[in-house]
């Protein structure tokens, strides 16, 4: 293939005012609404009290939404430039966590840096997307047809997946695998390749099963037949379904969800926040929240499609896919469609790390949108 240099379009740098104008405010507004619903639910989860969860959630919103705008205002070429660096750093952190886990002889997902605790596997969800977007930024469809060209990208996915798997954190590992695969798909890799790899993977499932931890297997068993173990692992799913079912069409009303308020619902402030919402706000409330998320996803897709450069496109679609995975897994989990894997519902569940991941990836999406008309050369020599 001949690497013909793309025509350089003389581009004027955007001023701050222009950038602010180009920020996708409707999308931000949607996020704010979802976040406020989360605030209300955490207020209810606290038994009608701002403590212990709601006020902190509000605080995080107040900090993170401006941070998201901040990320959007930075020149996207900067993010492109540091993509690999960031990815490498997170890989190092993941190794650090694994080594620590080895030393402490147990599952270790957190890295305590004294001031803050970080969970590198969460950061990896963003880092992987950035690195893959950076990699495929240079790739024309011809490139993606070549196995040799795809190999580094596949390694970029498998290395963190492996590192997270040994922590062991099956849920996040699967999430990374799915989002990485989706990125390959979006970069233009031929469909039949996915079919072949998928078939091979299916054949490898028995091996994976043999290597799973007992608690992970237990989760799968429980998922297949929750009623068989109503007090152990099945407890969460059954309680969640009762809460959903008794919520009915209109819900029991704010602060009146008996399942949640009576503490039958476990983890109601984190992984099962959606259940509580569906119990108190009913089918109507649950579907409303799902539609809000769907609206965010669709706006994100629009951003991805209308952006001029490949890096921006891929980063934007990556953010969309990330958000989609969070929502789809969480809601499937609490409605008993898939095993309990411990994935929170973004902006609604209590907890900082997932929100941070989301803020960074959606910030990048906004950034792509701000720079939608900017054409970044394929081989940026001097950015």
């Amino acid at each position, binding site marked *: 293939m001949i690497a013909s240099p793309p025509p350089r379009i003389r581009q004027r740098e955007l001023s701050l005012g222009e950038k602010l104008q180009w920020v996708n405010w409707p999308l931000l507004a949607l996020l704010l609404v979802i976040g406020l619903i989360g605030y209300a639910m955490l207020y209810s989860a606290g038994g009608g009290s701002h403590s212990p969860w709601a006020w902190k959630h509000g605080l995080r919103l107040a900090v993170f939404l401006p941070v998201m705008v901040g990320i959007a205002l930075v020149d996207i070429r900067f993010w492109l430039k540091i993509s690999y660096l960031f990815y490498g750093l997170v890989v190092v952190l993941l190794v650090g966590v694994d080594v620590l886990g080895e030393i402490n002889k147990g599952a270790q997902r957190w890295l305590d840096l004294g001031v803050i605790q970080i969970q590198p596997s969460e950061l990896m969800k963003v880092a992987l997307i950035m690195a893959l977007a950076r990699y495929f930024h240079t790739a024309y469809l011809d490139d993606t047809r070549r196995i040799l060209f795809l190999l580094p990208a596949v390694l970029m996915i498998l290395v963190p997946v492996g590192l997270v798997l040994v922590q062991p954190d099956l849920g996040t590992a699967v999430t990374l695998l799915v989002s990485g695969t989706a990125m390959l798909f979006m970069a233009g890799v031929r469909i039949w390749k996915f079919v072949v790899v998928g078939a091979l993977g299916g054949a490898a499932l028995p091996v994976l099963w043999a290597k799973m931890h007992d608690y992970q297997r237990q989760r799968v068993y429980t998922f297949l037949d929750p009623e068989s173990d109503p007090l152990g692992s099945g407890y969460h799913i059954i309680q969640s379904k*009762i809460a959903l*079912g008794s919520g009915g069409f209109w819900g029991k009303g704010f602060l009146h969800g008996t399942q949640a308020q009576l503490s*039958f619902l476990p983890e109601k402030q984190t992984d099962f926040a959606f259940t509580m919402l569906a119990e108190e706000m009913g089918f109507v409330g649950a579907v409303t929240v799902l539609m809000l998320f769907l609206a965010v996803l669709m706006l994100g897709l629009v951003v991805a499609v209308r952006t001029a450069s490949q890096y921006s496109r891929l980063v934007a679609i990556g953010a969309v896919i990330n958000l989609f995975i969070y929502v789809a897994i969480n809601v499937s989990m609490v409605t008993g469609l898939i095993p309990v894997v411990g994935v929170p519902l973004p902006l609604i569940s209590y907890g900082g790390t997932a929100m941070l991941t989301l803020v960074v990836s959606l910030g990048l999406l906004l950034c792509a949108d701000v720079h939608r008309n900017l054409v970044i050369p394929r081989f940026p020599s001097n950015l």
Partner: protein
Amino acid sequence: MQQEAERVRSFTRRALFVGGAQVVLFGALVGRLYHLQVQRSAEYSLLAEDNRIDQRLLIPPRGRILDRNGVALASNVPTYRVRVVREQAGDLRETLQRLAQLISLTPEQIEAVLAEARTRRAFMPMTVREDLSWDEVSRIAVHSPELPGVVLDSGLLRQYPYGEVLSHVLGYVGAVSQAEQQRDPDPLLQLPDFRIGKSGIERSYDKVLRGRAGLSRVEVNAIGREIRELDRTEGEPGEDVQLSLDLELQRFCFARLTSELAASAVVIDVRTGGILALASVPSYDPASFTGGLSRRLWTELRDNPRHPLVNKCIRGQYPPGSTFKMMTALAGLESGAITETTRIFCPGSVSLGTARFYCWKEHGHGSINLVNALEQSCDCYFYEVARRVGVDAIADMANRFGLGHRLDLDLPGEQPGLIPTRAWKKATFRQSWQKGETLVCGIGQGYVAATPLQLAVMTARLANGGLAVKPRVVLPKDAPPLSSVGVSRASLELVLRGMREVVHGARGTARQAALNLPGIEMGGKTGTAQVRRISKADRASGRHKREDIPWEERDHALFVCFAPYASPRFAVSVIVEHGLHGASAAAPIARDIMKKTLELFKDTIEPQTATVTERGNAS
């Protein structure tokens, strides 16, 4: 340019596909919600609008702890407790004060409930007091109209009928801590009344004893009052745990030790490693923990210089003194540094450089062989053996016999003891090993430290012909075959013979410890562990031998033994803290314990008359 357009087209196409897939999946989720919340909603909405289903976990009865003969050492007794529901109590403080006029209730207990009320849901009952007498129950029942929100309830209370005799072994149960809740996902741990094993067997076998929660679905009205039980799934009660411990022997050991201020004894089956008794004095009453401990009692227990809370058998680390000489002897025999006939001259002390190392016998033992050196516990003999083989060979031997590391006992808190090596000293103090330290180590002093359990295991491994038994309080159903410690039969026989002479020989240091049972002989070894360095001045005045020095500066007295000599079954180790002399303070206790053990197990001991005469003429 065409290529760029191509990839944009591909991207857009696929983005539309992804978008479509997302819409479809969200549609599926909405469908699922519709199924649960609308179609099946009737299932859950059958109840009247202010009724609700309350799922209550039922705490399964905790498994009992049994001794080897099936006697219950820990069991559950029904108890009445009084609880209060804040939502219904009106003024909680006032209600509690009214309650305090009927039953004994300290101001601290009232404050504790008030504090708990701040963190619990208003309709959750909180336990005010457990273990009510029947009298108190009826008084509350009579006054119930004046006590809104106060409910009587029955439950199970953990009971330890043998109290302090077994508290170190059994441990106790207590309220679940936050850390424990995080470590263990069992929903039972979320229940305020659930009790978890905090120490001892209760802790190490907690999962077995705990059982699985049952579930009761009850219909409750809007204020949380139970209307009726809808259905009930019984949980699985916890399994009983049977110990290898013998209650009668344990009680005997404990009673026998209480003549001392602080002492411990371990009895172990040399063939299986099963622990028959594990007694540590002084002890504490576990009942004081179940009802919540007063601060005063806690401080008293914690600060007591005799350490009643510590299980000395597994946590006390003492210099083994002369009981360690078997290890030095075996190191010498196995390396070829000495043989059965090697004689060493003991003039009463040896010098090394400027230092002088004394034998306990001031004028020395003269020329002496190994068996007699063990019999009379000659220090000079073992100084010389230690000098010949070096500290690392001794450490290797000691490690093989279970010293210097944890033995994976199924009780929490076991201490590793210490067996020094050159490398250890270098790593710990950044100093090189001194020759003199080897000599001191050879007689079990200096850095060497061992727990009574380790000494019992060491003796068991000597007595059973060099099999590496592991100590267990609960014997596993299928134990793996024992590995050998890798010491020749001949060397072991020789050391055991020396141990027999200690008890039965003409000059044995523990002659008064003989069992006086027809046909049964015993092997043993005395030990006296220095607590305080003997200064030259002490030696000159003879003060170090007197009994008028303060208790906490006196030497520890040790004795280890096994019996029957002809076909060993049991090993015993006894340590009397600051008991002065192994022979006078520890040996008689060990003898009595061994005698009792043999008496209790006499049906299981094969008659050994033939072998006794065959080996009995060694002296």
